[in-house]
């Protein structure tokens, strides 16, 4: 009997610890959505093995859709988290930057004509050039923020406004279409592997991010600069350069996301591609319980946050919510999630468990 009590006490301590953990928030959100779907319609979790038009085996089902379409967002969330940590601000130009990078990829693959019969350049070349371009645009944002001390949201507003017309201009406002099975792999499936490629690309990005954080001081530097810029400088850091660097890294993430995006369609629609993705990326950072004012960050929580957002979107699609109404529904759920995960509510939850424990002690 007594043993049982202590066990319960430990459990309460454990629960309290969990409530305090940063990653608790996206996990809780994920669980809520998962349980909702389980009750609403268990067939949500059904995964079937089928064959696509080319005859390759593919897994399909809502979960696969989430893994597939959440990938771009997860990749962007990596860069956005680091920018947020170092600058205490967000980059709202990532959607427009994806349009530019995607346009660059297609332009290089297509060469001079807009609908070539074969690729005019190797995919790797197109991708590397688009990486370079995206990093240059990232650097542009970085200079505005780090050197000219413009608020990140205002600085990136420039590219947010201009980006999609730059993208259109790169291809003379034509709609290039690439007809190549290899190119469509990045947004589709690798022959013989039934899991969507974007998920593997996202995994690759996460692995690279983990390696970079482990083998460089990127994490320490961005946190230090985000928390106290003046102290950081006194410790020999160059805060401007650190901020600049985070924007360049985000640029790289943009290029990878753009590759997946244009590969899905083998084409591009300048005004629609990656529309509003910047807001989802910022939301992923927030859902990961990272302070949008900068400082400490948890990359895993942001990535999980990105998949939670995709989970939500897919759930709403599944429930046949009209695509125009989608944003409104999403907003309601997001408000709920954000309020539940707010420090005020969390502290209340912690206090609740404390009280419960105390009451039980008194009973004993």
């Amino acid at each position, binding site marked *: 009997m007594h043993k049982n009590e202590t066990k319960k006490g430990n459990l309460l301590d454990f629960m309290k610890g969990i409530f305090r953990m940063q990653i608790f928030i996206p996990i809780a959100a994920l669980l809520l959505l998962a349980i909702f779907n389980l009750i609403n319609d268990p067939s949500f979790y059904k995964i079937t093995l089928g064959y696509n038009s080319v005859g390759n085996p593919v897994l399909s089902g809502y979960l696969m859709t989430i893994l597939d379409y959440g990938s771009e967002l997860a990749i962007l969330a990596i860069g956005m988290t680091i920018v947020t940590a170092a600058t205490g601000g967000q980059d709202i130009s990532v959607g427009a930057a994806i349009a530019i990078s995607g346009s660059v990829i297609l332009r290089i693959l297509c060469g001079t004509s807009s609908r070539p019969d074969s690729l005019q350049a190797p995919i790797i070349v197109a991708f590397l050039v688009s990486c370079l371009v995206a990093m240059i645009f990232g650097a542009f944002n970085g200079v505005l923020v780090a050197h000219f001390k413009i608020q990140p949201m205002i600085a990136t507003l420039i590219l947010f406004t201009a980006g999609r017309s730059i993208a259109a201009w790169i291809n003379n406002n034509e709609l290039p279409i690439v007809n190549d099975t290899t190119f469509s792999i990045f947004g589709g499936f690798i022959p013989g592997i039934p899991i969507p490629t974007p998920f593997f690309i996202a995994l690759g990005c996460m692995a690279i991010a983990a390696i970079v954080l482990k083998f*460089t001081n990127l994490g*320490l530097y961005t946190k230090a600069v985000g928390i106290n810029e*003046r102290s950081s400088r*006194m*410790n020999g*850091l160059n805060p401007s350069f650190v901020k600049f660097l985070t924007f360049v890294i985000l640029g790289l993430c943009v290029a990878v996301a753009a590759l997946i995006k244009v590969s899905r369609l083998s084409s591009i629609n300048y005004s629609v591609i990656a529309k509003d993705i910047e807001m989802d990326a910022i939301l992923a950072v927030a859902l990961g319980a990272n302070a949008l004012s900068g400082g400490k960050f948890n990359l895993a929580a942001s990535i999980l946050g990105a998949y939670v957002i995709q989970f939500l979107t897919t759930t709403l699609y599944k429930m046949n919510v009209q695509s125009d109404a989608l944003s409104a529904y999403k907003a309601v759920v997001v408000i709920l999630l954000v309020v539940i995960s707010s420090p005020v509510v969390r502290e209340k939850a912690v206090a609740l468990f404390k009280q419960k424990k105390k009451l039980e002690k008194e009973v004993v």
Partner: protein
Amino acid sequence: MKDNSILEMKNINKRFPGVKALQDVNFTLCKGEIHALMGENGAGKSTLIKVLTGVYEKDEGQIYLEGIDKPVSIKIPQDAQKLGISTVYQEITLCPNLTVAENIWIGREVGAIRNWKKMNEKVDEILKTLDIPAKSTQQLSSCSIAIQQMVAIARAVDMDCKVLILDEPTSSLDDQEVKKLFQLMNDLKKRGVGIVFVTHFLDQVYEVCDKITVLRDGKLVGEYEIKDLSRMDLVSKMLGKEFQDITNIGETKTVYHEKDSTLRVFEANKLESNSGIKPFDFYINKGEINGFTGLLGSGRSESVRAIFGADKITGGSILKNGSKIKISNPIDAMKNGIAYIPEDRKVDGIIGDLSVRENIILALQVLNGFFRPFSKAKANQFASEYIKLLEIKTASADTPIKSLSGGNQQKVILARWLLTHPEYLILDEPTRGIDIGTKVEIQKLVLKLASEGMCVTFISSETDEMLRTCSRLIVMRDRKVVGELSGDELSANMIMSTIAGGDKN
């Protein structure tokens, strides 16, 4: 209340957790008087002013104003404003993107319909009578800092203020601008306004003030007519040393550092920075402890900040072992073996949300390079070594530094820099706001490090502490080096007379 007094504060007490900020302080201000409020850091000047202006609520005591029979109650800043008490702070609190007239009218009830033409005319009139060279329609940010300050004063005057508090108004003004400000102050004095003038500049006090009230450690030292108090006396009253005691202090100097080595390690020639310090020469020998002394705001921090590259160096040169080195950022200084423990721990020292471990390894980590992070084991080893060495009281190395006490935070910063094994350690007020035990520990440590060959520059507001640790003192006044003391000259007496300097009284 006395006949001509306009404000009387009686037996004011204010406590903060763990500190008595003000203890039975009295302050009287007369009509048409410029009254200097003097005291070193932590003396209680700003607390007294904040009590008067409603930023803090007093715990005990009464405040009387002219024409009101009973004590007035000032709980929020608006109360003070309504009673005719206005403050102009060091940093301008007006809106730079509005016009002069808008700034003068903002936040005052002028009705829903505004006739800007009339209001601008009124403002021009005010500016003219006060002889302020600005136009009502000019954007405030296009005026110099001095004019902006004067506009703030004009605003206060136009709001019928009887008591005007000027909190360090001259610290960002040049000589010319200070003169203009003083003219304005004298003008207001003639109109019967009582002015409280808070400053660190001794010369300015003797130029414009009629009376001086000195505070020390939250207590009133006394109120003096300016003509009765020589600079020397003022300095000794601020520092809390009477001349009789001074000889004794000279004897208590227990550790007198040997100047056995004359090898110059670092040297500065005509060094100047954008912080406004006048060019100064400086050197430090191997194993020597020297110090910069002077009143607060005299430029002692700015001097060492220039050496460390914390402020932008605008002239002069720095030499290490006789050859010139270039320092344009702290990292350059760090690479040359200089470590700097800054005066303002919260702003320049700690990285609040990071753990004690991360705070300890930060400087060495930065020196080690972006691509060579320490392993977790190594970082833990460094942290636990220094936590033990300096007896840092923390729950664990993972605890965020901001939850430590001030003294322990300071030890973490000290650990950070000792870990880099510097050749030259600069400590700027390392013992401020920390308990006496830690103070003594830090002093001992400094002496030990120097005996092992480290160069140390030590800055402290406490003369005793400086005398105990330093073998050579550089004395500063008004951002200039005014003297250097060593050997037998090292006494509180000499320090004070050098600080006071040019004693005309």
